[in-house]
């Protein structure tokens, strides 16, 4: 799985961090999401898909 994060779209809701903490974090200076791992292992794939679905900014896309 390959994860893309569009930081320009991100509105810093933190939903992705709650959904997949191993893969997303938020920058200290403005809360914008950062990708910790753009190729997460299979056991995190569900969490990442969940993050992409609940992201209010549609900033996360996943290539399977």
């Amino acid at each position: 799985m390959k994860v893309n994060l569009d930081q320009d779209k991100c509105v810093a809701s933190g939903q992705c961090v709650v959904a997949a903490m191993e893969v997303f974090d938020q920058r200290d200076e403005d809360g914008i999401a950062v990708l910790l791992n753009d190729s997460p292992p299979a056991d995190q794939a569900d969490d990442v898909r969940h993050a992409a679905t609940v992201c209010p900014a549609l900033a996360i896309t996943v290539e399977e």
Partner: protein
Amino acid sequence: MEHGDGRQALSYPIPSPAALEPPVEWADLRRECPAARVTLPSGDEATLLTRYADVRKVLSDPRFSRRLNAEDAARIGDSESGGVFNGEISETLPQTGEEHQRWRRMITKWFTARRMAALRPAIETMAERLVDEMVEHGPPADLKASLGFPLPVWVICDLLGVDDADRDRFAYWSDTFLNLTRYTDEQVAAAQAEFVEYMTAHVTAKRADPGEDLLSELTTATDARGGRMPDAVLVATGQALLVAGHETTANMIAKMAGLLLADRRRWERLVTDRSLVRSAVEEVLRFDANAGIGMPRYIGEEVELAGTVLPGGTTVMCGMAAANRDESAFDDADRMDLARSPNPHLAFGSGAHSCLGQALARTELQAVLDVLLRRLPSLRLAVPPAELRRIEGLAVGGLREVPVRW
């Protein structure tokens, strides 16, 4: 269906059969008339969107402007409705584009998932104190007045570094800003002047002696271009957080209790399994059929949407609550499923203007629910659900009171 066929516009907002129920028309509108012509309380016309995909698209499309100040934009209310539609704040704070984004990003750092996790115990302590006071007075109690209304003000006061002793003043100011009809013009003007005076002095004090709060940080922080927030913007930001974060959350706490207690099997399920609190809060947000009139947007150019062409100069109403019941986005959309996941509802909007305080709102709702389940597992409505009444007012939907026993 007659809606939007050029003959008769539907009168908006559409009444509901009961306080917690959606209008029966929503399902038909989504199916047959996803861009319906409606008449707003002002008498002006707008186009109501009820499908999930359309609402989500418009909310995140920058061509649809949040400012309804164009000559031909619809007016919402028949009188000043206060709150989100009030001009004051929108005059001082940047509303669109890069400037808005810079303003927003200076604040969103305070609402990260990590900060919220750190804030959670303090919010639970506040909720516990309010529940203690409610219990002391004995049943029946109005859960909205005892818990829903004060808690979000306390949280915002903390965020702004305001003294505990001044919480009641903030509660009063917030109430006057939002309930313009309940107060005289003089009272509203006086509250506005008092608030600005208080906050201006408060900003000065924080600049001299910063604390750990958001406001202190904002007095010294610089934005992405190295700019600082002028005092007027700091004061307006404080007011924006109060106006946007108080009544919304207060009402949602009350509606959450109403929805979960109206069918007590929901409450019992949560009492036995508190691990459902997080998903239950999301489901309450999705299921809330009494969310106010939705978000208005104005489009200056012609666009294609919902299988039709909207001419330039159209005001659209994004019906988020109707969209949240869309079967094409949520299985069994009219059933409340406390374990629903994922739950990409639109209660906080979507896109660049989506709720800035959503992480905080979620944390408050989760904390309140957790404390209530723990402290008052026997909680129940003191009136039949059919007797719950909606508040007047357009912007934010709510219940007048939520009488409970335990």
